[in-house]
């Protein structure tokens, strides 16, 4: 096919070219032939005419026409001569070769005056004729005319053209034939190559090609053949590679699916849309799903709500790892842990989530066993300890109160009794140590068992440190070692269990005191990269580096256990570590032998919430708008004892607290609900507020929020007294759980009232003449400073915190916005002087 098409194309081209060339050459040849023959005929005619003219001069003069006739008849025999006639000087035809007579057209021919005259004439019987007229004796004797037939030329001409065309056509045929053969010879290997390439294209690498030619096609064929071999090799390599890879992949898949199928834990994979994609046999068994294919089902349609909720939480990769305890059939318990499937490569995308369910029935049972064990041990150890400690104390007491006075008379018996009293004291001390040990062991066992209920809320480390120092006062004051506390001002709170954090610091401080040879023990707290870092430094013997890692392990103490008597249970630091780590923190020690040790722990700081300036609707209802003027409404004797505002809806408790606080030398006011509390706090500016949380009307939390919104009550310490202490109360300073130990309550109240950081400082712009001091002393009982407007910034730079009171007429001189942004600074613009005076 292909060869024909090549032949067709080349053939048409050849024929066309050949045709044009043939036509052009034959036309040129015919033209040249025609031209040549005409010229030849003209010269031939001329020669004949002149020869006749030369020979007939005399004859003509002699009028011998018969001789002329005989002569011209001879010339008629010459090829191409059509006619001959001779005229005499009078233009009369003397003789001619026409039969029977001369055509009239020729008779009219003009005679040449001199020389030869050639004229083209068309004669009826002869066709086109070239007439050559020659004068005889310059026309005097007459003229000779010879007619040369042009028709003959025409015949020659056409015969030549026809023969030439025939020859050319024959040549063309021959050429086409040769072309056909040649193209066939060229195209055959091409066709073979094409077929070969086709087979290669259809990946038939067994195909081969016979190539003998040494030309370009042969070269191409050989190149193709080697290419094909290369391709075949590549293909087979690739195929074996693919086969190998597929095999490996299959094996890997089998391996993975075997792992998934043999997992003891139930596995569920969820697509980002929430559809089930993989469920392993364990999971099927847990939920009795049988063998049905659940792919594509919504998780909620297949699994219980707990699993479905978990799946929903993790499938979009937005949350973190989630876990939930879920009930399994037959009263078993499962622990479901869900995590998102995030792929980072090549582009980060979420593939859904995976939920693992483990049957924790046994673990739960073991856990319960452990709890029960702790509970039992706790009971079994505590009961005899109670008797031992209690009776020892009773004995001691009775010795002191009854026996010793009675033995006054008998020195020997009294000495003995004193010794008995000492011995009993030893029993008490040792029993206490044993109790501490039991408590510590139980504490750490409970922590490890997760038995501890943590009461998380915002905890201020400064407060924790003070409480811990107070709790260990007996220890350090007895040893004559001072405990110094440096808490950075404005330290952000941490989220945690207040009591447990106090426990950590009590442990660290008592350790420090125990080992210190001289004071002071220094506790510091400061903010370090979003962590509240607390340190307790002592001047003790130090800890060898080899032991530093161990001291936080259970029952490890520094020193030689054979020669040095352990000074505690060895559980204090492990408990500290448990507590700190539970708060997301870290505990460590740095020490230099002979110099002392520093214990550090860090706990993530709570990110301070931005304090929205707008009050709650509830607050606004109680306190319309902060009225600057009201701050000087009161004028009281600053020497009065501190005022405590008790907020409790239970009148009996209110009365009880009133009695308690008044008995301790405080003044007391009682508010029955939050709303009343906020108004009374504003009007009377107590030194401290005790707040119940559960109250009708405005509850304690809202009340605290309102108090914190009002610049005048913001600084007042709030002590939350509630039966519910589990949940944190934002804004409160200390929370105590009811029932509260009276002694402790009074202690905390005193601590809060004396706390330096809650003291309210005031800075008044302008001089004494601008404001009335009497009222201010109520708002700022501790510290009022007057300063000219230009000095305010130096105060702020030195770290002033508190109220800045600016008389309205001075307000324009200060950049109040900038001032209000300074940490711990509250700006109050006081009304113009007239209004100011009116309120007093």
């Amino acid at each position, binding site marked *: 096919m292909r060869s024909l098409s090549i032949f067709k194309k080349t053939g048409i081209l050849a024929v066309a070219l050949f045709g044009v060339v043939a036509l052009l050459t034959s036309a040129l040849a015919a033209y040249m032939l025609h031209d040549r023959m005409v010229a030849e005929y003209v010269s031939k005619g001329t020669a004949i005419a002149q020869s006749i003219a030369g020979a007939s001069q005399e004859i003509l003069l002699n009028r011998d026409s018969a001789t002329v006739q005989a002569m011209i008849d001879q010339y008629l025999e010459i090829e191409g001569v059509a006619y001959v006639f001779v005229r005499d000087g009078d233009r009369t035809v003397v003789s001619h070769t026409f039969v029977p007579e001369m055509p009239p057209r020729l008779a009219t021919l003009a005679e040449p005056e001199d020389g030869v005259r050639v004229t083209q004439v068309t004669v009826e019987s002869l066709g086109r004729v070239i007439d050559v007229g020659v004068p005889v004796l310059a026309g005097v004797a007459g003229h000779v005319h010879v007619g040369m037939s042009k028709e003959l030329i025409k015949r020659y001409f056409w015969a030549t053209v026809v023969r030439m065309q025939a020859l050319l056509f024959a040549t063309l045929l021959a050429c086409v034939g040769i072309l056909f053969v040649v193209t066939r010879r060229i195209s055959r290997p091409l066709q073979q190559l094409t077929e070969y390439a086709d087979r290669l294209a259809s990946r038939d690498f067994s195909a081969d090609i016979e190539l003998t030619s040494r030309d370009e096609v042969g070269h191409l064929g050989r190149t193709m053949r080697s290419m094909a071999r290369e391709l075949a090799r590549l293909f087979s390599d690739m195929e074996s590679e693919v086969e190998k890879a597929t095999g490996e992949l299959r094996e890997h898949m089998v391996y993975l699916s075997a792992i998934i199928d043999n997992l003891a834990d139930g596995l569920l994979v969820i697509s980002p849309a929430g559809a089930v994609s993989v469920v392993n046999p364990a999971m099927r068994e847990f939920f009795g799903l049988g063998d049905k294919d659940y792919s594509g089902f919504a998780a909620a349609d297949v699994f219980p709500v707990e699993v479905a909720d978990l799946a929903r939480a993790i499938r979009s990769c937005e949350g973190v790892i989630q876990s939930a305890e879920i009930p399994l059939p037959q009263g078993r318990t499962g622990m479901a842990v869900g995590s998102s499937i995030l792929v980072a490569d090549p582009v980060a995308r979420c593939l859904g989530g995976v939920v693992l369910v483990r049957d924790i029935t046994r673990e739960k049972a073991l856990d319960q066993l452990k709890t029960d064990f702790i*509970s039992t041990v706790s*009971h079994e150890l505590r009961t005899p300890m*109670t*008797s031992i*400690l*209690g*009776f020892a*104390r*009773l004995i001691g007491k009775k010795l002191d109160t009854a026996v010793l006075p009675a033995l006054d008379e008998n020195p020997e018996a009294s000495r003995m009794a004193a010794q008995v009293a000492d011995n009993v004291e030893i029993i008490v001390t040792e029993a206490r140590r044993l109790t501490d040990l039991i408590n510590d062991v*139980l504490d750490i066992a409970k922590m490890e068992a997760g038995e501890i209920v943590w009461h998380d809320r915002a905890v201020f480390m400064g407060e924790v440190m003070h409480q811990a120092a107070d709790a260990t006062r007996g220890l350090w004051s007895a040893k004559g070692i001072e405990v110094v506390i440096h808490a950075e001002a404005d330290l952000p709170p941490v989220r945690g269990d207040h009591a447990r954090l106090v426990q950590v610091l009590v442990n660290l401080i008592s350790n420090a005191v125990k080992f210190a040879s001289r004071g002071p023990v220094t506790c510091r707290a400061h903010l370090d990269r979003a962590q509240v870092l607390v340190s307790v430094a002592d001047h003790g013997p130090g800890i060898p580096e080899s032991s530093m890692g161990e001291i936080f392990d259970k029952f490890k103490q520094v020193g030689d256990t054979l020669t040095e008597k352990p000074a505690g249970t060895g559980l204090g630091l492990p408990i500290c570590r448990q507590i700190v780590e539970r708060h997301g923190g870290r505990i460590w020690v740095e020490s230099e032998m002979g110099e002392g040790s520093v214990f550090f722990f860090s706990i993530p700081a709570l990110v301070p919430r931005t304090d929205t300036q707008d009050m709650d609707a509830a607050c606004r209802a109680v306190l319309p708008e902060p009225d600057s003027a009201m701050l000087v409404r009161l004028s009281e004797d600053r020497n009065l004892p501190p005022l405590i505002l008790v907020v409790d809806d239970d009148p009996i408790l209110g009365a009880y607290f009133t009695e308690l606080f008044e008995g301790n030398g405080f003044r007391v006011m009682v508010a029955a609900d939050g709303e009343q509390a906020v108004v009374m706090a504003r009007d009377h500016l107590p030194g401290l507020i005790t707040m119940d949380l559960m109250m009708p009307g405005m509850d304690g939390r809202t009340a605290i929020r309102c108090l914190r919104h009002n610049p005048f009550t913001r600084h007042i310490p709030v002590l939350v007294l509630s039966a519910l202490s589990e949940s944190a109360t934002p804004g409160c300073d200390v929370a105590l759980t009811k029932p509260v130990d009276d002694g402790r309550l009074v202690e905390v109240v005193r601590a809060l009232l004396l706390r330096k950081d809650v003291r309210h400082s005031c800075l008044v712009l302008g001089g004494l003449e601008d404001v009335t001091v009497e009222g201010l002393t109520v708002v700022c009982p501790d510290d009022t400073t007057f300063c000219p407007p230009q000095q305010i910034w130096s105060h702020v730079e030195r770290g002033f915190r508190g109220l800045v009171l600016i008389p309205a007429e001075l307000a324009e001189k200060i950049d109040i916005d900038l001032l209000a942004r300074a940490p711990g600074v509250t700006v109050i613009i006081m009304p113009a002087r007239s209004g100011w005076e009116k309120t007093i």
Partner: protein
Amino acid sequence: MAKKILIVDDEVHIKMLLEQTLEELEDEYDVELFTASDGEEGLAFIRSEHPDLVFLDIMMPKLNGYEVCRVVMEDQSLQGVKIILLTAKGQEVDRKQGLELGARMYMTKPFDPDEILKVSKDMLGL
């Protein structure tokens, strides 16, 4: 009228300890001390005598402290009875449960006799 304190504990020694500790109050104030050895006995006494203060152990035969506490708190006629739970169980859940039932206090063993005295005085308003 004499204030009545009831001690309910199945442990003889603890009962004795509490009794001896509280004897001091008996000497100084108009206080009477009573004891019971199990929950049933204790409850029967509370019902008949309306004591002002009850030191109630939790783990006891027959009727445990929680149950006694619940019955007393639910009984309107026993409103003035203050209960202090006294137990060796120091678990957080126990404490919570006890307070939820309406006990005034939850004291863990071993306790300090002085504290017992102080708490008793506070509770009885002495």
